[in-house]
């Protein structure tokens, strides 16, 4: 096919518009890829996932190759989204491939003006020491009326709505076992 610049633009514009409509999820029509060479995802490993943004729980298909995510798209088998995604769900590829992602354990010493990097072991060991010190210093075994309350009042825990269930459960077990009562997360706000 002999493409001039003008027909090329027309074609890609048309494809783009179709893709946009399809993404809104109102059109259920199989798309046939027509392109030179092999599909980028042909040899990729395919796994399913669920979108990490809102609570609709749309299905994702993730293609990975060479230890990298090379494509993420809506899962057409998923009964809620049937392949469609919103702009955030469509952009998840840029969470998996993003130069701004944290890749090191960062540490800021008291009164310091900068971040430095640490190993996991150094950081986790110091965090545990800090948590023990705070717990031992602020622990309330009995309240004013003499009732046993066993509260770690100087420590607060936040977060969880973006974690997996298994992580949430373990976080709850972790905090309760340490006696933390200031345990809160996004559901409260």
């Amino acid at each position, binding site marked *: 096919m002999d493409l001039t610049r003008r027909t090329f633009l027309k074609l890609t514009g048309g494809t783009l518009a179709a893709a946009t409509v399809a993404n809104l*999820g*109102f059109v259920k029509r199989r798309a046939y890829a027509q392109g030179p060479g092999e599909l980028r995802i042909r040899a990729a490993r395919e*796994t399913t996932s*669920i*979108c*990490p943004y*809102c*609570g*609709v*729980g749309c*299905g994702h298909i993730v293609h990975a190759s060479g230890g990298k995510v090379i494509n*993420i798209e809506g899962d057409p088998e998923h*009964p*809620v989204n049937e392949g469609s*995604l919103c702009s955030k*769900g469509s*952009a998840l590829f*840029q*969470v*998996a491939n993003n130069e*701004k*992602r*944290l890749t090191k354990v*960062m540490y800021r*010493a008291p*009164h*310091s003006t900068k*971040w430095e990097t*640490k190993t*996991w072991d150094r*950081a*986790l060991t*110091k*965090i*545990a020491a*800090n*948590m023990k010190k705070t717990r031992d*210093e*602020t622990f309330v075994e009995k309240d004013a*009326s003499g*009732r046993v309350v066993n509260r770690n009042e100087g*420590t607060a825990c*936040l*977060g*969880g*709505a*973006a974690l*997996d*269930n298994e*992580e*949430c459960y373990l976080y*709850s077990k972790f905090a309760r*076992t*340490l006696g933390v*009562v*200031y*345990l809160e997360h*996004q*559901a409260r*706000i």
Partner: protein
Amino acid sequence: MTNHWIDIRNSDCIMIIGSNAAENHPISFRWVTKAMENGATLISVDPRFTRTSSKADIYAPLRSGTDIAFTGGIINHCLSNKLYNEEYVLNYTNAAHLVNPQYGFKDGLFTGFDPKKMTYDKSTWQYQMDDKGFPKRDPTLKDPNCALNLMKAHYSRYTPDMVAKVTGCPKEKFLEVANAYCATGARDKVGTIMYAMGTTQHTHGTQNVRSYAVLQLLLGNIGLAGGGINALRGESNVQGSTDHCLLFHIIPGYLGTPQADHVDLKTYLDKRTPKSNDPNSVNYWKNLPKFMVSLLKAFYGDGAAKNNDFGYSYLPKIEGNYSHIALFEKMYEGGIKGLFILGQNPAVGGPNSRMEKKAMENLDWLVAADLWETETANFWQGPEVTDPKKVKTEVFLLPAAGSVEKEGSITNSGRWAQWRYKAVNPPGDAMDDLYILNGVFTRLRALYKKEGGKFAEPILNCAWNYGEHPDPHAVAKEINGYDHGTGKLLVNFTKLADDGTTSSGNWLYSGSYTEDGNMMARRGKEDPTGIGLYPNWTWCWPVNRRIIYNRASCDTKGNPWSPKRAVIKWNGSEWVGDVPDYGKTVPPEKGVGAFIMKPEGFARLFGMGLADGPFPEHYEPLESPVNNLLSKQEKNPVIVVWGCAMDCVGDAKDYPIVATTYRLTEHWQAGAMTRSLPWLVELMPDMFVEMSPSLAKAKGIKHGDIVKVISARGEIQAYALVTKRFKPFNLNGKMVEEIGMPWHYGYSGICCGSTANDLTPNVGDANTMIPEFKAFLCDVQKA
């Protein structure tokens, strides 16, 4: 959600109120659209003409903070025109239950208010009991003290004229909504209500939700396909994180956190387990002892035995409030020494966020695990910190794993727990949160073993044996629970025991991972009912019941109110369809109460449980431009205002404009997961404030100008977006403007902007302490 996303397609009328689903839950709109294609009516009620409103058949504006005036008006319309489903209301709600004759309501206050303590004594908000200990009922509905008649009297003040004066919604528009929605009171019609944070983030947010639930009960819409009351959850697993109770007042499975006066397990169970004398009431919470003991066994294993009260003393006992606002108030006073955060950004997402950032300067240490450097992690170098050298806090910023970099389940709004797989390793040194929790806990335990310390027993006896890196499957199985006699995974929570022979980390999730495998990973597409339940797709709590309260989807004889979308039905020998609410073979003639979670078996039009009254009553927000027209009581009488030096409250004299906040499709929550994504940043690059052309004209502001938005808490800058989506409200003759702005922005990431929460008040709902983000006062000026 009582129902689920696909089920929206089964509705005849969808009222979206306190939510902009088209913008914030875009894929939910596939199902709204399908319902509309089948002839459903869409109603959008919102202060702003939103993307949702643009698709609606009826758009009704209302001033932020006046939901109860609006829904109270619909309830009045429904009752006074007898548009309710009488058989449903009589048999499934407490409409006929007789209330204590001492109960009353006057001048905006219910009986039992203590002005010194600012709380209610609820002893008059109770049923009259007969000599067998059953609540008294009058099935003729003639007794003036039956709940339905008390409700009629209560809402008789909520006339269409009153609704218009309070909310600013034109009377004709209100009546159009009331007529369209109340049409679902017909036997074979069904309507659904979709709501989100526009409903909950108010000082009367819980009562806003209750007013919707009451309306749905009157119209006979709970339990049916295409009905229910549906909270649209904003985060991918905020349903699961709530089920696992990362909240001070509940422990996994919505069990109440032990209080200081629950001195031992027996006292806790005696005080917490509801009793019912009625053999026809399932009273499901009677099983609390089984749930609690099994939870303690999951937490403490062999350390939980009969002779030590199953480790009950290991759990902290609360007295008072430890919610988000209380937590930051305590931190501001210097009472919190360390803050441990797994994926939350309160420096942007918290109320009065300037105060929250200031409070963090009092911390000795902060741990924050996230995918990006957030405003919370780097608060010590934020724009309001003049000298980071003066900030003492030791900060650990831990690189976490994203959704495709770990394995585990998340639960959507429809209660579906869905498994996701790991596609790749996290980047660099990043690790998942199971690793982080395990790494800290095992080191802490080693320290307590070596050095001793305060009350080390729970830490030393905790059943925490996950090796170097916890396996999510092992944790999921622990949540599901085991029979310790056989060593096998439990089939579901009906097998739980209160004698220590079973364990389950969360009874609601029992059945999610059984000897038959990981139910949350299932991908079966069968739809035997044809109404989109997909019972073999992943797994949903409780016991894979896709629509809860489904007994109420049938009339008293067991026939579906709407046969074409039957959820369950009685076939003469058993209930078929969805997993039924109670016994598969218990016949309808037995008359077992439909609402199994209530001791009396009836849903409550008249409710005893909330802090601020048995009926939802309209009060003005903490900051309001007008006086309450419905009573002398201006604000919700039982709200708590902490009042530290940074908790200022504004007055309409200085701040005459109502303000609200909202979200955008292209950004998410406090921005950490979107403001560093170039595609999304390009689509929505800047902070803006929407205002009406009339307000812009009065203030000399043009579209695109940079403006200052000022509240009693602070001042921010944003681009003016002048739009007819906002219009001034006519409130009993006084014209009041409203503005709105997104709350996603902060100073980190590749797109930055002012934080809207620098303006919002530090005051919470009377029941939940959810902050009043959605209605406060401000002023706008050209910058």
